[in-house]
């Protein structure tokens, strides 16, 4: 929105009602942040069960995180799965969006519908479906099967982000490159990809976070190697490991929050 339009809007008071929406927004933020804040404070408490009041404060749990080999392995597995899933989903999302935006072909509507369809299937259904097909085909469950599942549920996010960017990209740029003698693959590599660059990174990060935080499918698809959410889910029933788990989850949360903000800033800057 331009400043002029904004000023005009102010002058006639569009969007102005007497409802104090500012305080409502602040209240909602308090509601959204308070539980996380309580848990954050709790991660420094000496309490070993989920109980109040907090008896004392310690940073020991954070120290224990780095001594727990299983925990670190699970976190590393999550990184591997997230990277694989995000790379596949972004690559396929890119191919899908270029095909759908730049071409008219027989299966176009079908491809678009297919790419969005994982959004309307409950995760537990996808979990059951992939679990059964892998069992039927004797594919051993591993980090790869989790990554394969995550690539499917992350694909709609990649496709949506890249579609909206590609629609705003002037096709004349590609025509110009081809008029100057570039082949279409060269045009994609040298013109389209650089222009999409920030959106590609944003799509990749979004897909990574979708995978990194996913537990419902991963529980079904994990073999012996577990991702961090699967490991955490399994450990939540055991009181003695709970404080360390919470500490680790807080640490990883700081990471995913940072990544999300980076993805957002990249998208906002590239328009």
């Amino acid at each position, binding site marked *: 929105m331009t400043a002029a339009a904004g000023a*005009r809007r102010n002058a006639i*008071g569009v*969007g*102005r*009602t007497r409802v104090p*929406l*500012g305080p409502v*927004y602040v209240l909602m*933020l308090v509601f*959204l942040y308070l*539980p*996380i804040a*309580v*848990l954050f404070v709790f991660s420094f408490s000496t309490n070993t069960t*989920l*109980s*109040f009041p907090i008896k004392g404060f310690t940073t020991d749990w954070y120290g224990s995180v780095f001594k727990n080999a299983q925990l670190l392995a699970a976190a590393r597995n999550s990184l591997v799965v997230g990277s694989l899933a995000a790379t596949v989903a972004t*690559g*396929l999302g890119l*191919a*899908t969006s270029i*095909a759908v935006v730049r*071409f008219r*072909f027989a*299966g176009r509507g079908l*491809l678009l519908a*297919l790419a969005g369809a994982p959004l*309307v*299937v*409950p*995760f*537990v*259904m996808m979990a*059951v*479906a*992939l*679990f*059964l*097909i892998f*069992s*039927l085909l004797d594919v051993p469950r591993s980090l790869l099967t989790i990554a*394969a599942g995550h*690539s*499917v549920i992350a*694909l709609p996010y990649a496709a949506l982000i890249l579609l909206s960017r590609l629609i705003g990209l002037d096709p004349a740029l590609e025509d110009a490159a081809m008029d100057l003698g570039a*082949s*279409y*693959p060269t045009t994609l590599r040298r013109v389209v990809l650089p222009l999409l660059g920030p959106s590609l990174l944003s799509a990749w990060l979004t897909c990574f976070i979708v995978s990194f935080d996913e*537990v*419902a499918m991963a*529980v079904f698809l994990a073999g012996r190697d577990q991702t961090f*959410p699967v490991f955490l889910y399994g450990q*939540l029933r055991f009181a003695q490991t709970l404080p360390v788990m919470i500490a680790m*989850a807080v640490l990883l*949360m700081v990471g*995913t*929050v940072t990544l999300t*903000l980076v993805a*957002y800033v990249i998208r*906002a800057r590239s328009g």
Partner: protein
Amino acid sequence: MLGRRGSLWFLAVPPFLWLLALFILPLIVVGAISLLPGTGRIDFSHGWPSLNQYQQVFATDIYIRRLGISAVMAFVVAASATILAYPIAYFLTFRARQRATVYLILLLVPFASSYLLRVMAWKLLLGSHGAINWVLTSLGLVTEPAGLLVYSQAAVVITLIYVWIPFAALPIYAALQRIDRSHLEAAADLGAGPWTRFARITVPMSLPGALATFFMVFIPTVGEYVTPSLVGGTDGFMYGNIIQDLFTRAGNWTLGAALAVVMLLAVLVLVLVALRLVDLRRVAV
């Protein structure tokens, strides 16, 4: 040299095959396995197809009742999250002005926080020795901790509403941003007051986005099993927990497959009904 048209194959075929192999085919396999007669090995040579599993699903009261309860819970969660997210999105679009980015980022932080961690946070708040009970007893409002807060349907619903609100705000925000401001200006010029403009322009024009949001929350929530297993207890478990149990503990894959198919069909029917009501393609996020 590869032409433009030739490149299309290399663009369209990989995602198509990938989704065929890892999305469509697995769904067909679930359907096929749900038609097996017995619970033992996967063997299609005897008595396939059979409706045994479906007969069992519909003959067992608890399954269908739990699907109904889960659908109602998911409805309450999706409706509440959408309604609570609406003022957030409205504020970001029409009120936040030059600080909109800051406010949006403040919303993205809880959005990006670990799902399991946010569920644990509510367990910590609602537990019988949790934060809320502690505050209440310290203030002398209650003498004994009310142990009923956690492990209930209400705990599941509250936790899920909380988890979904930031997610729900984003598509509504996108829908509100797409509203052409000149409509609102024209209405103002013609003498419509703020409430009239809100009720007659903003709400109808953002309704498809709000409905899309509703379904984007409703669909995954119907099949939810992680949150109920953590804060639901024996009362708040959902249909997804039955499916998970059949696969992980009971080892009854065929019945589990039939339950999953029934859930997916129920969800798809609801989505198709909604698609008839509004054109969701107009509101891509």
